[in-house]
Every structure is written in C-alpha cells, then in structure tokens.
C-alpha cells in the first residue's frame, strides 16, 4: 500500500511519519506515537473518547485521516501536564470527583480545554453543549460539569 509522508506537530513536538491513506489520526497517535490517552470507543464520531485538538479545535480523531493532518498541529491529553505537574483543568477533574472509570476522561478534558480557550467563563448550558459529544457512562455528568466550572472559576483567582 502506498505510503504518504506527513509532518505534523503533536503536543509541540514536530513528527515526520509515513502513513497509509486509510490510517486514522487516532491510530497514528496510539499506534505510531504511543500516545494512548485518546481512546477508541465507537469509531464513528458518536462517543468523543478520541477527542483531540486539531489546530486548536476539538475533533473526533477516529474520523480524521492521519494524512489529512499534514502541516497541522495536534494536541492530546498527554500535552496537558507540564513537567509532571497536572494542569489546573486536570486537577479540577480530580477535585470535583469527575473521574470514575476514566475511559471518557482524556476526550472530556480536551473538549473542556477547547471550551475554556474560546470562552473562559462558560455558563452551564455552554459547558453542556461543549461536552454533548463526549459520552460518560459512569458519572452522570454533574461532577464533570462541576469540574469545568471549577477550572473556569480558578482562572479568575
């Protein structure tokens, strides 16, 4: 199968790889770069557990081809912590008890990250709209909404 050489920035690091056209961005991240934070749930853009930021915007990486990301910038959950220190948003998820099994968390955090970047003080309805594409079967969502609110409030201090 024909391979395409692509260069992209992943969490600030430039990567050059050869990929077949049918490989998804999710497969590239997990199987080529061993960034296993993004998860595959449905593989059809329904569950959001593969959410990453592509040029700053959240997308479901199971529906993006790796070859489409040539020249682009990707951020994953692995880019949240700096020097072993969790981001305030990650810490808010822990403090609010917003993590149970954890499968949805990497995608949920990335959707919340993108929301806070475009809207630092979202209303509860805006939080709900932003994470509507991220399914969680454990928490019932209330603690996740509280975590995003907590992270937003933390910014004011």
């Amino acid at each position, binding site marked *: 199968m024909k391979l395409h050489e692509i260069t992209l920035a992943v969490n600030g690091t430039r990567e050059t790889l050869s990929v077949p056209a049918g*490989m998804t961005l999710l497969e590239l991240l997990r199987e080529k770069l061993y960034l296993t934070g993004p998860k595959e749930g449905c593989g059809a853009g329904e569950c959001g557990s593969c959410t990453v930021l592509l040029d700053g915007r959240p997308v479901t990486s199971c529906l993006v081809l790796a070859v489409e990301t040539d020249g682009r910038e990707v951020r994953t959950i692995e880019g949240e912590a700096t020097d072993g220190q969790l981001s305030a948003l990650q810490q808010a998820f822990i403090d609010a008890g917003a993590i149970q099994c954890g499968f949805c968390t990497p995608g949920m955090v990335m959707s919340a990250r993108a929301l806070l970047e475009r809207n630092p003080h979202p209303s509860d309805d805006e939080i709900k709209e932003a994470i509507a594409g991220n399914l969680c079967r454990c928490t019932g969502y209330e603690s996740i909404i509280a975590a995003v609110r907590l992270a937003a409030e933390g910014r004011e201090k």
Partner: protein
Amino acid sequence: MIGTFDYVRVGSIKEGCELLAARNGGAVALAGGTDLLVSIRNTGRSPDLLVDFKDVAQLNRLVTDNDAGAMIGACVPLNVIADNTVINDRFTALAAAARSVGSYQVRNRATLGGNIANASPAADTAPALLVLGASVNVTGKDGTRKIPIDKLFTGVKKTSLRAGEVITDISLPPVGSRARSAFLKKQRVKGHDLAIINMAVSYDPDAEALRVAIGSCAVTPILLPPVNLSENEPIDELAERLNDIAQAAISPIDDIRASAVYRLGLVPVLLSDLLSVLLAPEGGAR
C-alpha cells in the same frame, strides 16, 4: 484502518474535478469526512481514491451581504456557519440547523456541502436551505451550473449531481428586512442524534410569503407548496391548514428512531411551535 483508498489533497477545483473524471467513478470527493468515512468503515466498500477539496480557498469562503444574500463555500464547517452573526440574524433557520448537526467536535469537521451532498433524508441543513430558497453551485469537467436546492435531492442519499461534479458553493438570496426563519428538530436524546423529524419555516410579512420544509419524513426533504396567508388568520387555523398540506406531502416510514405514526403526529406540534415563534403578535409582523 478505515479503507484501502489512496488520498490526494488538491489545491484547486479544476484539479480535483479532473481527477474525479479521470478515475471514472473510482474516486470520491472528500470534505469533512464525517459521513463518508463512517460509511466506508461500515460498509467495507472503499473507493480507489479520496480527493480532498478542503484546502481549496474558494470552498472555504463565507461571504454575507445584506443586499446580495450570502454565499457559503461547500467546505465551510458547520460550526463556522452556526457562529456567524449575519447568518444568525438574517438566515436564522440555517444557523440553528447547522448547530443541531452531530456534536461540537463533528461540526468542526462536517461541512455544509457535505451535509447536502450526502443527501440523507434527515440532513438538518436541508429544510433550512429549502425555505431560504438556496441555490447549489456545482462544477464538473464540463463547467459549472446552478441547481435550485429543491431540485438537488432525488432519493435516499441520491442527488441530481452528475458523475464527477462537486458542490462548490451554496448561495442564499437576500431576505427582506422583516423576513425571518426558524428551525426545529425532534430527536431521541437532548445531545447529538439524528432527527426523528426536522422542520424549517421562513416568513416574509412584506411578501406575505410563508414556506415550510420537512425532513426525515420522506425519501427526500420536502418543501411544501407555497401558501397564501389570509389576513388576520389565527395561528392555530393556519397551523391546521399547513398540517393538512404537510400530511398529504410526506410519507414517513417506521425506523429505528420512531414510527411513521409518531412522525405524522409530530408535524402539527412542530408547525405550531415554529409558527408561534415567527408569527406571534409580539414579533410585530402581523
């Protein structure tokens, strides 16, 4: 791996159309991929080549002008349309319809051109484009032509696009200063879901023109024949009159999302809700 296809990113419409023509049906145009890639994955039927048009600058333009209407490139993502101030103010039904598609992440990839080219009977932007009188500009190897939106959809996932033709822009004619439109969608869950039924209504008090379009209730989205408004007709009587016209025009089926009977029952509910929004006395139009 989603499929065995190869991939080319093109820099111009001409380059892309030549590739589509040369492959004689083996190549498929790629925009956001949120329908196409899922379909390839689910069916296991892979085209030979995906021709990615997303980087063509012309296809990413969104131009609005009060006098000239709006021109939306086929590859403009639905979130960009949903967030555009002029589209929200002047073409409200389209902004609301764009916002109702999939999830926020999907709308960052899904495009207006893709939503209509995919031609799902449940396509959310279709009823909005129908009541707004949109035209679809298409290009193929033999040149360009304009298809009125009500001539685009010919069946379930079927359009009047010829082999090798791609949608380049969707143009919306200017709307009157007092004209307005609205869109509603009924779905199984509050989050993201396909429509059980979706509906758009546009109303221009100066032209006395009212248009209604319904999706997810026939093999294509349906634009009802135009109705003349009689002066001082109460909203509930108008809703009843429109419901009679709608019930005759649609032919819903039972499917995984709802029964045909339930869909027929939702028509007067959505009609009444939309007419209340558009025609209520406090709106000042009637």
